[in-house]
């Protein structure tokens, strides 16, 4: 019977096992090798050793530009999205009539497709006739930013667009908030703690696992910005490369410039960066992430 069960198990898993080998492990190994070649599909691959990596580090301004853009985006967006997402979730956690209606509505933008949302915001951000600058002029900003046509304001434009979908992370925080046992707040109220102290000493510590999850996913997400950058800035990455996000740069090298080897090298640098981010996060997490009980191994 045990043997039969085992055979059944492997049969059930067959689709995934095939995919694992054919679409994952194989390509990963291939990717390492391709990254050491110069290859454009038309000619046969030329072995170049580490030259692709060398070129990236020492002579590729586009690569460094993509790193700068991505880091700039992280620095601007991650704190802003986290704070506003948390704030919104606190608001959505209040017990008010019609709250479900508001939750549904405010979550809506985050389920809409990246392209459609970007298309919408391209027009809202039009410097002269767009709605955003009309609002800014209305509240007294004499010279509102030129947004997408200005190299300094292109990344902030993407961040502003992202704010429209901040309900997405708010829903995740909301789930975390609703998991905090109400007794904690009751006890604190009896001890005379005010709303602010309850927030600092109960809500934030109890929410650290959720904050940790959101922080990791948004750091990794910054390396995957593509749709928005493509629609807002085109395949060249906008005015003077201001929107040359990492993934866009990689796609351009691979599929526009036909440099498959070089693009694979870029992919591996991305893996390395992601691994570093994940490692730092997990290393430091013991110090600031609070688990009430050790999460049971699933």
């Amino acid at each position, binding site marked *: 019977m045990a043997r039969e069960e085992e055979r059944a198990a492997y049969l059930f898993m067959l689709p*995934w096992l095939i*995919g694992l080998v054919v679409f994952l492990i194989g390509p990963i190994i291939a990717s390492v090798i391709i990254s050491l070649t110069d290859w454009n599909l038309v000619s046969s691959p030329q072995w170049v050793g580490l030259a692709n990596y060398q070129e990236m580090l020492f002579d590729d301004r586009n690569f460094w530009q993509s790193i700068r853009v991505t880091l700039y985006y992280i620095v601007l967006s991650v704190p802003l999205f986290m704070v506003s997402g948390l704030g919104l979730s606190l608001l959505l956690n209040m017990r008010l009539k019609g709250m479900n209606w508001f*939750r549904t509505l*405010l979550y809506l933008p985050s389920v809409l497709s990246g392209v459609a949302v970007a298309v919408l915001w391209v*027009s809202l951000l039009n410097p002269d006739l767009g709605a955003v600058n*009309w609002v800014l002029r209305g509240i007294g900003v004499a010279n509102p930013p030129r947004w997408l046509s200005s190299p300094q304001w292109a990344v902030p434009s993407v961040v502003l667009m992202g704010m429209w979908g901040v309900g997405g992370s708010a829903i995740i925080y909301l789930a975390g908030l609703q998991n905090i046992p109400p007794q904690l707040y009751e006890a604190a109220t009896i001890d005379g703690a005010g709303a602010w102290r309850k927030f600092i000493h109960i809500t934030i510590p109890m929410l650290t696992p959720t904050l*940790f999850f959101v922080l990791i996913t948004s750091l990794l997400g910054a390396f995957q910005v593509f749709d928005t950058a493509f*629609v807002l800035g085109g395949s060249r990455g906008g005015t003077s490369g201001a929107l040359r996000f990492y993934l866009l740069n990689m796609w351009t090298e691979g599929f526009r410039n036909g440099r498959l080897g070089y693009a694979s090298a870029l992919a591996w640098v991305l893996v390395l960066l992601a691994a570093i981010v*994940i490692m730092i996060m997990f290393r430091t997490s013991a110090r600031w992430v609070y688990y009430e009980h050790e999460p049971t191994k699933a």
Partner: protein
Amino acid sequence: MQTTAKTATSAGQADSALRYRAQRIAGQALAYGSLILLSAFVLMPLGWMLTVALKPDNMPYFTIPPEWFPTSYWEWNNFPRALLDSVQPFLRYTFNTLIIVLGNMVGTLFSCSLVAFAFARLRFRGSELLFNVLIITMLIPWQVLMIPQFLLYYKLGWYGTYLPLIVPSFTGNAFFIFLIRQYMRSFPRDLDESARIDGCNFWQVFWYIVLPLSTPVLVVCMVFVFQNTWSDLLGPLIYLDSNNKFTLAVGLANMVTRAGTKWNLLMAANLITIIPMVVVYFFAQEKLIGGIASVGLKG
């Protein structure tokens, strides 16, 4: 003397009760105020988009001040025009997108439920190791696979077809497998054991007992698949090479980057892309928000 003291305290009590109530009402008013403001922030761009989509060709699309909802022009004909446009046929794009979406739904449903069942309900050697592999594959940035997978499909002659966009879903997706497995684990063990004693084989246990019970989590996965595939830009951009095979996302991206775009038609096309997502969202939102919540907690 006594009576005055008494009235004083009750007056004080009434006073503080009153103050408490006033504070509560002020707090609620403030909350409603911010909620309404935020809702406006969400709704106004959508209303503006509809306004532009309903304008006739010769009208200025952008106006100062912006028109947040349609008042004077109702050019519904723009929708069929965008759908049937000869250069960018959005009806065709919608149809293409649907093929890919349905293919992915079938593929994900088939593969992920099978694999999740094995992980959740069957005992076998190597299960722990394989489960760890599953978790690790979730952490691998898929961008690494972009080039080698492209080469693989290219060599297979799949470039320019929908196969690269559909077939991989039949081999499962680590995230959905994980989600479904978590759900399937919550059923009591006796369930399959008694069915086994009654003579069911593992396939029957899966098909007649575990799968029907898993409908809620499968629905959540299907909604996720719909959203991801419907809006995917990168995949179709890499693998599709001709206009009549393009998806909505590619069509929109091409339209907005093209010079001389008619903004009313662009916004109509944009609404054509958005409306199915909104409809699916409203039907599934309760389950969906629950599903996202459980994913968030996993971290």
